[in-house]
């Protein structure tokens, strides 16, 4: 069913009795051409683009829980392409472009809101590092502006300009960056894929691989064995666990990242803002909640929840730049499991096992990647060659030393 | 110029430690002219205790404890390290002489700033910064802990059940520590008493 104000009005007249499921809740078949493991943003987008761009529809997405239950349903919704390394800029900018046309493309309003992302800087050194980044973006044709203190003050007068420990000196602004309604991305892709024939199978946990002669042949799941010629892994925080079923060790650790939402408020914070001298970033959802987060808890975890010190650290960061939020209340906090790589950049590649493909290592930045990750992963699976925008995200880059370390932290995942 | 010059000593809390609030809940004094040194046991040498015993009559307790004899105190800061404190001069050479190969000794007389805290509300104040249980059932005279207090690394030990505590912080952080102390103790009243 095509969505529009007219379909809405028509259904309203009919007491909303006419709506049909947004996606089919499919029973798994015994065999498919392609299986995608993981019904998160990336898995669903991959299925969508396999169907839409490559005409491959004998595809199933296997999700161990309900779709969107992973990180796509628990991120802070920020999308941007303000990276420093050309390989990353190229990929995330491709994603930005896809975001910009997404809603018309899949006929679902995911509320892509290009309200601007502002990264504050607090020292000359940081300013120059941001200049380096902004210039790299501009060289790649991506919008970037370096604001000074007065420009930031005019834009966001409520920030702490008066008694800050690390005074705000300015910021790097990407106006095209912003937020997207996270759940709707999963639902929209699921709907688009399902409409084109893809089976979305929920409550179906992959528990092992069937490998025959060095080639994948299918998976063991909580709902039985399913055969397939090609299998794509897109399980984010669970990448190591699933890869281990195929005997692979990855350059990944799973860490917990918390996020928080405040009670609903009238519009207060117009953009996405990040603190440069502490761990804090914030935006306001269209519903009115301030959505914010900060650093990883720092330890490995599969528990989807964190601890109090980081809650306090994040709020401290928030008060440091915007002391007006002191009396606003934190309503809920939650955690997600991040597939943190050794250089902080992702992996979209074939694995040593034929027919098995890997999309992983998104750290805390993979939501913004969703369209491009789906696009590029679908391309890789369908054509067995990388899509150019993702050609640097290879597994062997660590062995070669061609690492993509934006922060210069080295092989320590919790510092990226 | 030359030997005639005497360098003036400036203690870290000189400028920053001030009274706060009304009342006498907490009394604080700075321990000035303290000699301090880090003592780290060197590999293969486990006779530090024996040497301390014979040189100073100090019985070194295992674990996170303060061991003292006369003027000399050893506050354990880690499995093989201590902060030695004394008011008499020449601490570092004395320790080097007594411990020889057994330990590495580094002068820290200026490295730390040390406060002594007491008063009926001292625990109520410290629990606003220190995450270690200072209740008498858990922490007693002779106990020590290396921990953090309001974002600052500290070493704390208890001198007396009164209670009297001493806290060492890195010198450069004295102002920040004083600020925290004043804010936290103000509701009970903080009095600066003459240094000892």
């Amino acid at each position, binding site marked *: 069913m095509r969505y529009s104000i007219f*379909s*809405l009005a028509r259904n309203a007249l009919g007491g*909303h009795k006419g709506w049909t*499921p947004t996606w089919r809740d499919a029973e798994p078949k015994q065999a498919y051409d392609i299986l995608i493991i993981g019904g998160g943003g990336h898995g669903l987008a991959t299925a969508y683009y396999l169907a839409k761009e490559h005409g491959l529809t004998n595809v199933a997405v296997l999700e161990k829980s309900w779709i969107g239950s992973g990180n796509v349903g628990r991120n802070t919704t920020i999308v941007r392409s303000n990276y420093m390394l050309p390989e990353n800029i190229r990929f995330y900018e491709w994603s930005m472009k896809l975001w910009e046309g997404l*809603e018309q493309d899949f006929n679902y*309003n995911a509320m892509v809101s290009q309200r601007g992302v502002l990264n504050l800087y607090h020292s000359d050194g940081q300013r120059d590092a*941001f200049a380096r980044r902004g*210039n790299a973006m501009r060289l790649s044709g991506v919008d970037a502006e*370096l604001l000074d203190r007065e420009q930031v003050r005019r834009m966001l007068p409520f920030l702490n300009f008066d008694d800050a*420990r690390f005074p705000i000196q300015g910021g790097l602004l990407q106006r095209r960056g912003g937020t997207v309604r996270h*759940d709707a991305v999963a639902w929209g892709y699921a709907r688009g894929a399902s409409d084109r024939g893809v089976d979305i199978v929920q409550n179906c946990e992959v528990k092992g691989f069937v490998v025959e002669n060095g080639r994948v042949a299918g998976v063991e799941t909580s709902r039985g064995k399913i055969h397939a010629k090609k299998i794509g892994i897109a399980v984010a925080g669970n990448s190591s666990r699933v890869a281990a079923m195929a005997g692979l060790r990855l350059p990944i650790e799973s860490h917990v990242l918390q996020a928080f939402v*405040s*009670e*609903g*408020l*009238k519009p207060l914070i117009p953009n996405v803002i990040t603190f440069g001298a502490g761990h804090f970033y914030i935006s306001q*959802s269209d519903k009115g909640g301030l959505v914010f987060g900060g650093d990883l808890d720092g330890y490995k975890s599969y528990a989807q*929840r964190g*601890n*109090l010190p980081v*809650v306090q650290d994040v*709020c*401290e960061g928030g008060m440091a730049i915007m*002391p*007006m*939020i*002191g*009396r*606003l*209340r*934190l309503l809920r906090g*939650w955690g997600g499991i991040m597939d943190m790589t050794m250089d902080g950049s992702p992996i979209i590649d074939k694995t040593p096992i034929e027919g098995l493909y890997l999309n992983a290592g998104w750290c805390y930045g993979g939501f913004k990647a969703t369209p491009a990750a789906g696009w590029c992963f679908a391309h890789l699976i369908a054509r067995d060659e990388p899509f150019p925008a993702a050609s640097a995200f290879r597994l062997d*880059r660590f062995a*070669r*030393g*061609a*690492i993509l370390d934006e922060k*210069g932290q*080295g092989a320590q995942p919790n510092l990226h | *110029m*030359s*030997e005639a010059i005497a*360098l*003036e000593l400036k203690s870290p809390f000189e400028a920053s430690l001030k009274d706060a609030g009304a009342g006498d809940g907490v009394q604080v004094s700075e321990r000035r002219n303290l000699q301090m040194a*880090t003592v*780290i046991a*060197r*590999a293969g040498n486990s006779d530090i205790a024996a040497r301390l015993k014979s040189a100073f009559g100090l019985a070194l307790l295992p674990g996170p404890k303060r061991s003292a004899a006369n003027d000399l105190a050893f506050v354990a800061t880690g499995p093989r390290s201590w902060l030695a404190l004394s008011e008499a001069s020449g601490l570092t050479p004395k320790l080097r002489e007594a411990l020889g190969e057994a330990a590495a000794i*580094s002068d820290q007389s*200026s490295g730390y700033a040390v406060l002594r805290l007491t008063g009926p509300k001292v625990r109520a104040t410290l*629990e*606003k910064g220190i*995450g270690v249980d200072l*209740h008498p059932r858990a922490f007693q005279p002779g106990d020590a802990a290396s921990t953090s207090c309001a*974002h600052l690394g500290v070493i704390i030990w208890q001198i007396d059940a009164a209670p009297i505590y001493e806290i060492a912080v890195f*010198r*450069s952080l004295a102002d*920040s520590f004083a600020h*925290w102390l004043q804010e936290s103790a103000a*509701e009970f009243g903080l009095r600066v008493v003459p240094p000892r």
Partner: protein
Amino acid sequence: MTNSQRLSSGGLIDRGKPLSFRFDGKTYRGFAGDTLASALLANGVKLVGRSFKYHRPRGIFTTGAEEPNALITLRSGARREPNTKATTVELYGGLEATSQNCWPSLDFDLQAVNQLFAPLFVGGFYYKTFMWPAAFWEKVYEPLIRRAAGLGAASGLPDPDRYEHATAYCDVLIIGAGPAGLSAALAAGRAGARVILCEEDFRLGGRLLADHYQIDGETGTQWAEQAEAELTALPEVRIFRRTSVFGVYDGGVYGALERVADHLPQPPVHQPRQRVWQIVARRAITAMGALERPIVFGGNDRPGVMLASALRAYVNRFAVAPGRVALFTTTDDGWKTAEDLIRAEIPIEIVIDPRANVAEWLMKPIARAGTRILLDAVVTDTKGGRSLQAIEVLKSGSKLTFDVDTLAVSGGFNPQIGLSTHLGGRPRWSDEIGAFVPGELPSGMAVAGAAAGQYKLAECLAKGAACGAVAATDLGFSASAQPAPRVADEAIEVKPLWHVAQSRHKAFVDLQNDVTSKDVEIAHREGFRAVEHLKRYTTLGMATDQGKTSNINGHALMADLVGRAVAEVGTTRTRPPHVPIAIGALAGPHVGAHFKPTRYPAGHEWALANGASMVDAGQWHRPRWFTKPGEKDWLESVTREAKTVRAAVGVCDVSTLGKIDIQGRDAGIFLDRVYVNMFSSLAVGKARYGLMLREDGFVLDDGTTARLASDHYVMSTTTGNAAKVMQHLEFCHQVHWPELDVAMVSVTEQWTQYAVAGPKARVLLQNLLGDALDLSNEAFPYMACVEFTWANVPMRLFRLSFSGELAYEIAVPADYGEALLRELMRAGASLGVAPYGTEALGVLRIEKGHVSVGELNGQTTAADLGLGRMLSTKKDFIGRVLARRPALTDPERPTLAGFKPVDSAQRLRSGAHFVPLGITPSVENGEGYMTSVAFSPHVGSWIGLGLIKRGPARIGERVRAYDPVRGGDVEVEICSPVFVDPEGARLHV
């Protein structure tokens, strides 16, 4: 302004302490002991807010933190607190509250027209529309949606109040001071355990304050008072009133918020507004009670409809007298409301119970009072404008209407399972009480009382005491058995009724987020059937009450729709905080200038007194430059300072660099392993520049390390990496090579260190030290070091140079740091000495081509920095192997070079990218970037260091330094990174 709806006697309010307050500009009066909600009700105020989506009039629904409706904005100005639940606000004199989400007024809210469009605004409508034309979303639709969103408005002003953090320890933490919690506290406290009892209310007692109970022949309130008195007298029991436990964390850590001053107009001097406690408990007992749940029927949101147990609390505890009351109950407990109203001589018109059979003894007293009873009947709809006027009841197929202004609803109770599930444990369904009860508990936690589904008072008291005793004995205390208090048992039968299907009008499931039963049906139709999907699609349970009154009904409705049991459908995950917590409280005391500690070097005050501007270097404050009278800008000061060093002598505080004492027989071997170059071969009395890699082959840090004795080195690190390097060294020692005889400790704080640099540096030091040391080039050459005593103070002198001039670094114990600085300046006065700051330091090192933070950014290799030859081939060291990976040794990597503008008047900026001349800059032809720049008085123009492909091979070539974000585009010439004295002659004079 009278308390028109107040009983003349009874209740726990203090009629001797009247308090006046304002709501929406009107003045009212309440009493000490009131909440804002009870005071409003006592004043006959029923309409207090508007709902989120449809702007429907809303009143007071509950008595606690579960309140979905009565959200107001408390206080004004910078202390404004939007979305405050009137039910949780303790009344104080002068309180000021305003309604929210309405315009122009609460009574007449224009956005109530939204109700007309309600047929369109169903769950999830926005996903289906607002897509065309594409440009409209950003410009038209989204701004409209955003404006409509949210409830209260923030002040936009900095919060003026202070917050504290504190840690408390206990053997047994008890959460909730109702009968169960009080009994638990008494049992554990009497056994001698350290007990903390947290109660979010300002008065202990829980439901004992709200219901009529007899315990051991006393009223429940009296019993609670006695328990409180006994607990207060126990030395190891701490009672935290006005304190909500909001979260359970790993290892027995509980978060609690103490509202220290929220019941006052503003915090008293030296008192925080609130305090967040981190409670470390060996055992915990949650005794948080149960929350009553509503029934979903048409118009169930109208002001005047409230929970039956809440109405009872308003009558019994707050002496509020409602008007004409009806009761709609599907539980035995609901009947107690009727009983209590009758006891308070408040007429109750009718009791409606959908059950066909209700115990005689429950009905008898009600019937006797003349109240009509309708069994096997349901309320289908309500009528009224801004408050309830009538209800429609369906009984045996016929519709009856009753004029009432208050409808008490009792749909059963839900144990407060919140905290018990914070660590991920799933609740368990109990058929007996028709509710979820705590399932697998976090270790060390027990649940008692109504929170565990134990609804009988006797059971609450007994189980509470048992839990308290078990916790104490588990921990080695001996608890003596106490006789159980005598109480009359109560009936608890409940027959869940989730939804009155015969309702014609909107029946609300989530009152705050305006989620109706119809929305649940739509979600079902569209496939959002998992409860977590239902939540996200309809926003059920996502409001400020987190579904405390709504989730179960929504989930039960979905269970009906999918034809499964509630237990199978399950419930959504609860998360901390259990109640919303002010962000300022979670942030704590470290705000403003105290966000992070500040470290001051010993010479700080001297520097301030001598015109220094300061800069943050990590947590340190360092002088950046010293302004002399008449200097017009920073560049003039910095240039003067740099020139002084090159021509005469300057003094710079370098104390912030990390200093690590490394001692032991194996210290040299250890350093050989952590540095790329050799240190075991360094002569005593000498220093050497060292470079450290990470294990992945990239540069970690650099610095000079001096050998003071055969078994004693002192290492220096960069300011920013001091802690990181210390951690790394400890790691290498403790984890990799514990067998080495090496001991290390940071002595950064012990030593204040000044660089004395410039051709006259030696003279200055000779002036100062006299013949204490022979400073001649022969006796004390470049890279020499010595420990000595001067003026009875132990000192260290190093002949090091970052500036490229004849230079020394002199170190003294920090207590003498300021004194030495004064002496240095005095000794140099006749030589024209000047203090210099980090900017001039930067100028001098860039002129000399020394790398620093700009180049040591974690992305560079030794070879990138022109230091590749330092990597020893004679030994293993951290990073050796992986530094050889192909991409790290690629000759095309950007490598360190110097840069000069072709037009010497042009300014350089770091962060600019290098691109070839004459072609359009693009990412493909980017060749590297500028890492550091300075205005060089020596060269007479701006100069820079940067990393550019094959840098050293391209000296003399010109490229563009392209800086579009700052509008810069400068033609530069690649040159040697050493601009001054490339032969190093000046170092050796």
